[in-house]
């Protein structure tokens, strides 16, 4: 049952928090990730979509029909809340069967078995949720959501509380879901790295407002502002005020000239820098930390804290604290931040 959903200027209020206006188009088989820090309104948006929060302005259209006044059970939307909302007093099979049981569906038995099979829950059918691992609980939640034949799956923090292996597994389950079910999916997360692994497009919320809405490539190529840039994982983000000052020919003035008065974001340059015509800058090492991607090195260059990386495999010797190291920045890697960049959170 695939439907197209359009969220049109949706606004909602929760106590003193105002959400919106939010515009979204959700197409079958595509996943939208809603990103944002804690308290940005991600859960509020999902609850408004699912019908647990009154929409004060705007519409939610399902195949052209405005459902913004409908009861949650009428919306045909699979809402998986934070913590999954599994029924603790029902077994795995009982949970998966639940939506079909309350609709008195004749094929509840075979369909339950089919879903249990598909999500490898057969051996766990008679267990209670409290006795399952995080990854197993996630699979029960998905199987149960599908049992209701939803026209949209809305999932709050799918990766919460999962270990690395379970996250990986969830990723492939979600991929499979997208490929086979042709249902639009909306995911909420505060972890951009995970969102990139699954979503086709992104909505970044800040203080209840949509700050950015685009696909992954655009988000990486041209982050809207300093907040979004930091949020999507750029290690080096400088607002215009940080670039001010610096003598002619200095690091800061070079950056300023490249982006023309806006802020700038760039990924960590490699160390040692590749040969080229780009100027060589020098920084004093402040910290050296190993990561799976290599060694992350923070240096201070012309009063800016710049993050560099020695990619794996690392060839010793490692820089020591206080040492001066040279690096280059490929001008093509610089992402100018639009004028709004100066107004990040708290700025």
């Amino acid at each position, binding site marked *: 049952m695939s439907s197209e959903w359009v969220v049109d200027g949706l606004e909602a209020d929760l106590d003193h928090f105002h959400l919106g206006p939010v515009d979204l188009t959700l197409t079958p088989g595509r996943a939208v990730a809603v990103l944002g820090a804690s308290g940005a309104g991600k859960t509020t948006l999902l*609850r408004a979509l*699912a*019908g*647990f929060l009154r929409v004060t302005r705007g519409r939610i259209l399902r195949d052209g029909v405005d459902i913004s006044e409908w*009861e*949650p*059970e009428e*919306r045909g*939307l*699979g*809402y*998986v*809340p*934070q*913590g*999954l*909302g*599994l*029924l*603790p*007093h*029902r*077994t795995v099979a009982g949970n998966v069967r*639940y*939506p079909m049981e*309350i*609709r008195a569906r004749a094929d509840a038995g075979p369909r339950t078995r089919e879903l249990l099979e598909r999500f490898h829950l057969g051996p766990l059918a*008679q*267990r*209670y*949720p*409290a*006795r399952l691992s995080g990854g197993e609980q996630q699979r029960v939640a998905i199987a*149960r*959501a599908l*049992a*209701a034949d939803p026209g949209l799956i809305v999932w709050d923090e799918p990766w919460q509380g999962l270990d690395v292996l379970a996250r990986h597994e969830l990723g492939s389950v979600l991929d499979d879901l997208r490929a086979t079910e042709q249902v639009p999916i909306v995911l909420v997360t505060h972890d951009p790295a995970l969102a990139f692994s699954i979503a086709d497009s992104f909505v970044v919320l800040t203080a209840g407002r949509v700050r950015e809405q685009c696909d992954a490539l655009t988000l990486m190529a041209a982050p809207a502002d300093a907040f979004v840039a930091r949020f999507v994982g750029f290690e080096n983000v400088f607002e215009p005020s940080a670039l001010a000052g610096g003598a002619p020919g200095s690091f800061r003035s070079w950056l300023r000239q490249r982006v023309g008065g806006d802020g700038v974001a760039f990924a960590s340059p490699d160390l040692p820098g590749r040969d080229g015509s780009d100027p060589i800058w020098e920084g004093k090492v402040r910290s050296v930390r190993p990561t799976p991607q290599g060694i992350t090195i923070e240096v201070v260059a012309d009063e800016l804290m710049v993050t560099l990386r020695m990619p794996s495999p690392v060839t010793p010797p490692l820089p020591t604290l206080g040492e001066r190291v040279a690096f280059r920045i490929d001008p093509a890697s610089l992402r100018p931040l639009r004028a709004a960049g100066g107004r990040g959170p708290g700025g």
Partner: protein
Amino acid sequence: MSRGVGAPPASAPRRHWRTGPLWLALQLVLSGSLLLLFVVPILALFTYAPIGDLFSAAGSAGVRAALWLTFFSSGLAVLAAVLFGIPMGYLLARRSFRGRSIVESLVALPVVVPHLLVGLGLFLLVIRGTPGYEFTRAIGFPVYDTIWGVVLVMIFVSAPYTVLASELSFRAVDGRVIEAARSLGAGPATAFLTVTLPLALRGIVAGLLLSWARAVSEIGGLLVIAYAVYPAGPYNGPVTSTISVYIYNVFQNGNLADAAAVSSLFLLIAFVLFLLVRIGERSGWVPWRRGDLAP
């Protein structure tokens, strides 16, 4: 730095080993003393009268009538707690409205007032010549010295436990689980019956048990409003009383052995009932603990 960090790890496990048993002993002594206080007076009751008296008490028609009255009226009081108390607990848990704290205080009031006052208040409402008297007679539920008086007092003193326990239990149900169920297609009533109520049931049942215990043990209010009870109607046919009033009477008449025997019999019944519920919970016969105990 190495000196400061080096010393504690060596001594920490040893200190733990030393204080562990002491701490345990303290807990055992404190809780043991309290348990002793519960058990010793009961033992005194059981040992005062010969065990044969207990059987003859069980055979006495007067005792049986009093037991029947007590269990019947406390059963009705629990039924009232189910019908009125659980919805009220739900209301208090799920809705916020102006004056809710006043309502909550009013609900707690019967727990704190001396129950003699309850009897007195009801008495003033329904004595001969008052509109309450005429009204209760007209609808066929006269209160003074009747089974309805007993039930009314019992509801008053016992229902608050159900209201408070239901409120807490409903509040403890994770709202997200209910929302998930709603989104899966359950209307408000279905979600209540299939999710909220089953999840809150354990706490509610605990509250109902407390309510029942409170109803059965009531005496203060009954001394005023239903000291003598005419099951067939006011001053009509045989007279009896609740078991608490019955024991009080026997004791007032100076018949200590009989009072002890009837008390022991009552205690035995109450204890067995409670034990059955606990064992039922333990072994999963009753539905409200499924999920916690599962393999």
